[in-house]
């Protein structure tokens, strides 16, 4: 496994044809559209399988871009899969739909995981993913609302995202949409080190915001070490609770728990915090929970190994789903 010595000019995806791991992810079934979802929501097993697809896309994107935050994207994959494939009310064919739910990636450095979800829902072509962080391409290093369809607001400076979410929630309330349109913000542990996040938490409670859920992707690793070593943020759930929020803690890789917590958070009369205990680099054994990968793209060898592992899991998950379907049909 390795990259060819010389790579052709032009479309960065074109030179990937020879590399089996970097071929498009085989998937005969696109995600269910919001309109068609109606009676049948994706099962947890399907959401887990989609999380694997998103992880594969992230590894491929970072391998091509040779830049970005892979491990931070992987820890949020299950949360993002649950949101985009099941919880969020959104319509890729009408991204400006006023009543849609809003997704804000407060931890903007995990942009690849959102880009993967957006591309698979048809907000832009899948090929665009391979232009990540390249000059003239729509996918910036951090989400940019004016360049990438489906991005609600630009993020990337930690601490600002939750305040933006509060502003969006209040605007929806002024428009009489507080009961229908919900705002979901995905924060990092770094976001919780920024003081502004707690200004926003104070404001959300003070203004009585009900249509806001903050999901903290608490993966315990940051650029300079573990959060415990660098700046221990402690019991984030208790902090949000003391700020007047409804706050629960879950295993951020347990799909059933994620879906349950997200759907419950819609029905509360207070802003909701879901502290998701996660593992940085989740899904790739060589990276999972290990320090030293933040902001570092995978080497071609690491990417190859990661894709081997993820593709094997995808095949298992796909086969299991087909088996289950077959049984249902009998």
């Amino acid at each position, binding site marked *: 496994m390795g990259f060819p010595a010389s790579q052709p000019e032009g479309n960065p995806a074109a030179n990937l044809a020879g590399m089996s791991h970097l071929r498009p992810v085989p998937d005969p079934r696109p995600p269910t559209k919001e309109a068609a979802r109606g009676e049948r929501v994706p099962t947890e097993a399907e959401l887990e399988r989609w999380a694997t697809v998103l992880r594969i896309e992230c590894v491929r994107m970072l391998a091509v871009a040779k830049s970005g935050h892979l491990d931070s994207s992987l820890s949020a994959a299950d949360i993002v899969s649950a949101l985009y494939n099941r919880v969020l009310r959104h319509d890729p064919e009408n991204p400006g739909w006023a009543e849609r739910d809003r997704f804000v990636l407060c931890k903007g450095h995990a942009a690849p995981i959102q880009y993967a979800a957006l591309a698979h829902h048809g907000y832009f072509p899948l090929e665009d993913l391979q232009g990540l962080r390249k000059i003239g391409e729509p996918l910036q290093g951090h989400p940019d609302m004016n360049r990438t369809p489906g991005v609600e607001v630009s993020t990337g400076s930690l601490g600002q995202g939750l305040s933006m979410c509060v502003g969006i929630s209040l605007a929806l309330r002024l428009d009489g949409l507080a009961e229908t349109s919900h705002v979901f913000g995905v924060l990092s542990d770094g976001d919780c080190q920024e003081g502004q996040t707690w200004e926003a938490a104070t404001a959300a409670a*003070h203004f009585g915001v009900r249509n806001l859920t903050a999901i903290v992707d608490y993966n315990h690793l940051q650029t300079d070490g573990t959060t415990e070593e660098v700046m221990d943020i402690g019991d984030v759930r208790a902090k949000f609770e003391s700020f007047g929020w409804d706050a629960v803690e879950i295993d951020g890789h347990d799909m059933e728990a994620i879906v349950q917590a997200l759907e419950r958070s819609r029905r509360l009369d207070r802003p909701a915090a879901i502290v998701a205990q996660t593992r940085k680099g989740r899904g790739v054994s060589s990276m999972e929970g290990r320090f030293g990968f933040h902001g570092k793209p995978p080497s071609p060898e690491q990417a190859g190994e990661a894709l081997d592992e993820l593709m094997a899991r995808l095949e298992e998950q796909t086969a299991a789903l087909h088996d289950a379907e077959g049984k249902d049909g009998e």
Partner: protein
Amino acid sequence: MGAKTEPSATRNAYGDALLELGEAHEDVVALDADLSVSTQSAKFGKAFPDRFFNVGAAEANMMSMACGLAVTGKRPYCSTFAIFAAGRAYDQVRLGIAHNELPVRIGASHGGVSLGEDGASHQMIEDIALMRAMPKMTVIVPADYNQAYRATLDSYESDEPMYMRFGRPATPVVYDEVPETLGPGVDVLREGKDISLIATGHMVWRALEAADSLEREDGVEAEVVNVSIIKPINSEAILESLAKTGVAVTAEEHRVVGGLADAVRQVAAEQHPVPVFAVGMGDEFGVSGTGEACMEHFGLTARGIADRAREALLLKPIVSHPPLFGPDWT
């Protein structure tokens, strides 16, 4: 809309016009950070409590919330002191508002040293420089109540991010009526052929006084130019005056570095190199005192402008030549 004839503060004009905007437009929302009486946004807050968000002493949160409100279709007006708007919340204004090119207006009150007694910690003398340096940000500094009223009313129609600087003290009016428009943001208030006095904000009425004194005592015909839109600066109007007089003095309640002085010097240096002298703050912070005592202390007076003009006029025959290249402005 009532034009003032007696001295009045520009911040009062902001508050009065903001109230009028609130009555006319449902999508106007206002935010303040516990200074609503000082910034005058309290008038809006009292009339439209549902559309007014006082975030307490949390300026960073205020700016990012405004971003969230703006991406959801509102036209937010953020009010606080200039020191906090441009200083504390710079990154929030930069990413959330300017980078996204959102129609958010920042009403920055208490600009400069004329706020007086609070001293250096509150006297913002770098905000024009900071906001001029920020891509996509429009910078407006009205000269009196009547122009400030117009600037605030017209800001609603614009789609650009905007920083508007207002002052604390009551200052004499320069415009007899509320002007129809800010026009290109450069107004010749008094014609003259010997020297251009190019001023902004609180220094405009002082420049008019300086011109009187130059005429009375020296027989000098000074041209007085009010620059209310510092960025983007209308270079044609500036060049027209420079070409006529061949020498200029700028005047601002701000550091000469990055402020009006630099804006005018940049235009002159590139297109019509004539001497441009400056009245403003040097490499120093403000001090406590009454507003007027502070202005005196730093030479930000009519006398200060006239004295600088006399120096410039002494040097004019030595340093001022017809331009060697560039457009013929004569």
